[in-house]
């Protein structure tokens, strides 16, 4: 029998103090999949990177909102982080490791590389001016199953 998806969605202010809130929310929601400590760490880090991007790049001077949606279907978690601020003009460039538009601020330019490395998939959509949507997913327990099966 196919299990129904489980979803939560929240909207919160793009303030750096909410980065911790966002990653803990997602981690708590994912507990139902019985993840390993490393899997939870990976997810928390990826969420933190996505939310930091919104705080730093989407709303550099003004306040704004971030929408976080998390869906669990089977053993796969899909996380969507959306903002409604400044978009990304060159997504390909933005995803390159070490590329940063703010080199004077001691930024590593590793945000998207970390999301990509810590999750199974990463999609970035932005049409320049009206916000950015980051969708990333990860299958929980895949390592365990592989070792049992093989």
């Amino acid at each position, binding site marked *: 029998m196919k299990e129904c998806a489980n979803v939560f969605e929240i909207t919160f202010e793009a303030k*750096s*103090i909410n*980065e*911790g809130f966002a*990653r803990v929310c997602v981690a708590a929601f994912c507990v139902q999949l019985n993840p390993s400590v*490393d899997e939870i*760490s*990976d997810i*928390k*880090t990826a969420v*933190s*990177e996505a939310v*930091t991007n919104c*705080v*730093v790049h989407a709303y550099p001077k003004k306040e704004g909102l971030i929408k976080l949606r998390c869906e669990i279907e089977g053993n796969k978690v899909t996380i969507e982080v959306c903002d409604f601020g400044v978009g990304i003009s060159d997504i390909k460039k933005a995803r390159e490791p070490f590329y940063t538009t703010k080199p004077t*601020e*001691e*930024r*590593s330019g*590793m*945000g998207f*590389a*970390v999301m990509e*490395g*810590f999750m199974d998939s990463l999609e970035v959509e932005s049409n320049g001016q009206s916000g950015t949507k980051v969708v990333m997913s990860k299958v929980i327990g895949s390592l365990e199953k592989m070792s049992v099966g093989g």
Partner: protein
Amino acid sequence: MNIVSTVKNSILYVLLKGELDEHSASYTHETLDKLFTNDKIKQVILDLSQLDFMDSTGIGVFFGRYKKLAGRGIPLFVANPSTQADKILKMSGIYQIVKKISTGGKYERVR
């Protein structure tokens, strides 16, 4: 972020306790830079054993501190990162310039 430090034998040892992200980055880098003004130090060790969380903001903070210290010929080390912090640090390639060490509980008393 809670930062505890001690200087012994010209080594500045700093224990970072808490979470290092965009929110705590400026406090962390300002506090570290203040500690670095001590002109007796010849080496700096950042102990990450009590860092509960770190994202790529940490790379920016550590790389910035490395550059500051390198100008004075002072090497920077990171010690005891968690699996998660280690993964990010490795990915960034920062270990080529900021070496990873293990303090093996040597500085236990300041905790």
